[in-house]
Structures are given as C-alpha cells and as structure tokens.
C-alpha cells in the first residue's frame, strides 16, 4: 500500500493533487467522519453531524473547515499534520513510517486509504458556514 511521502507532493502547507488521483465523494466522507472506528474524527473533534450524540472537544470543531482551508490544505492536514504542528495529537492518516509498536493488525497500513482521504477532504470542503446545522 503506497503511503510514503514519495507518493505525494507537498507545496507550501498543502498537497494540491488528489492522492492516487482518487475522486472524493462528500457523502462517503461524511460517513467516514461520523464512524467512531474508521475515521475516528468525532472522538476529538465536533462536527455538524447531529445524529452522532457524543462528540469530542479536544480539537477544533470541524464546522467551517472548508472556509478556513483549501482542499489541498485539508489534504496535508489529514495526511501528515506533524509537518505543520509537530506536537499535535492529530494522527497522520496516511503515514506508515516513523511509528512505534504498531499492533500487527495495523502494521504497514495507513489509518485511511487514499480513496477514503479524498472522500473526507471532499466532505470537509463542504463545511463552509461555521456553526451551521448544529
């Protein structure tokens, strides 16, 4: 599974091109964000997904993410946030190197595939009005 820096190009604070050329789907992305064992996003973040009752407050709300960041900026923040904030607890969703004691079931695998990351980017890009639909 390709998941190293060689597979994408970082320009400034963004990855401008979709990973592996995948085309994201916002509806699939929303489902990934809402899924507590797949995207894991709502463990730490809150977001405009009212059917998920229990959301985190450890990280900034996802509301308005699409207004704050371009798709390319969102992509890098998912793929390898440590490039921008080394101490951030946000995991790198598309990295398999530089990790310690990864459980065998997850070894060599990124948290999300390239296609899933593109879905999440597509969804986050739709979150334009802060606080809407909450």
């Amino acid at each position, binding site marked *: 599974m390709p998941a190293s820096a060689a597979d994408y190009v970082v320009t400034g604070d963004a990855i401008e091109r979709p990973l592996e050329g995948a085309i994201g789907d916002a509806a699939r992305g929303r489902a990934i964000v809402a899924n*507590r064992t797949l995207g894991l996003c709502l*463990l730490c973040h809150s977001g405009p997904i009212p059917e998920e*009752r*229990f959301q985190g407050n450890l990280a900034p709300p996802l509301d308005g993410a699409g207004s704050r960041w371009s798709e390319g900026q969102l992509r890098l923040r998912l793929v390898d946030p440590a490039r921008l904030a080394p101490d951030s607890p946000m995991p790198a969703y598309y990295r398999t190197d530089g990790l310690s004691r990864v459980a065998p079931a997850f070894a060599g695998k990124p948290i999300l595939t390239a296609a899933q990351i593109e879905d999440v980017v597509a969804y986050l890009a739709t979150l334009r009005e802060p606080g809407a639909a909450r």
Partner: protein
Amino acid sequence: MNATRRTTLAGIAALAVAPFGAHATPETMRAAIAAVASGRPMREGKVTLDIQPLVDNGNTVPMRVEIDSRMEGADRVRAIHVFNERNPQPHVLSVAFGPQAGRASLSTRIKLGDTQKVVAVAEMEDGTLWTAGVDVIVTIAACIEGIE
C-alpha cells in the same frame, strides 16, 4: 409462591427468549408489556423507576424500582416487571413479592446497550396495572478493547 405468581414469572421468562440474533425494538417492548397486561388497562402512577438519566457505561446501570403501596390487601403489589426497548431482548427482570416482602421495591444493576427507554409495570393484588418509563442516555466507550 402461589400459582398466579408462578404463572406470571414463567410467562415472562418465556417472553425473554427472543429468536437468535433478534433485537428489541419499541414494538417488541410493547408486545412484551402487552403480554403481561393481557388486555388490562395500565395507568401511569404509583411506580418510581429511578435510573440516572446519563450513564457513563451501559454495562453497570444502577436501577431502583419502587411502588407506592402499604403491601396489604388489594393494595399489595404482586409483581414488578421491567422492560427495555433497545437491548437484544425486551425483558430485563421480573420480581414477585411474597408475604414477607417489606416493601414493593428492588434495587439492582442492569445493562443498557444504547440510549433508550426503560419501562416498569407493577401488578397489584386487585389486578390493576401501573407503569412508569424513564429515558436513559448511554455514552459509548471511546476506547473499546478487544475481548481478551
């Protein structure tokens, strides 16, 4: 225990056996309650069902049910039945009270797999039925470990 009470508990125990893989729903809970009522009307009141409204872990949810009764004559409580609407089965427990019961009350701890309603139904000696329901919000553990 007398024949009526035995029949009551046996009937409920039979209801508790749901088909493999089935899941309780508000409808199956209503059906289980209807089986206890067997056509008799139910009224709200007399029943205190005490469960915390927000539960930190659904595996251990303290519950107390108590009926306002002197435990004498027609006012005596014959049995209490407790049901839920979103566990795998609608029945939680039934308790029949004998002559040495000092109060129509029971405290225990139950499992709630999800946010849902819990309902208690009390059967009085005169055959009347009283009920109360509580909505309980159950948080889900964020870090679920595998079975060891």
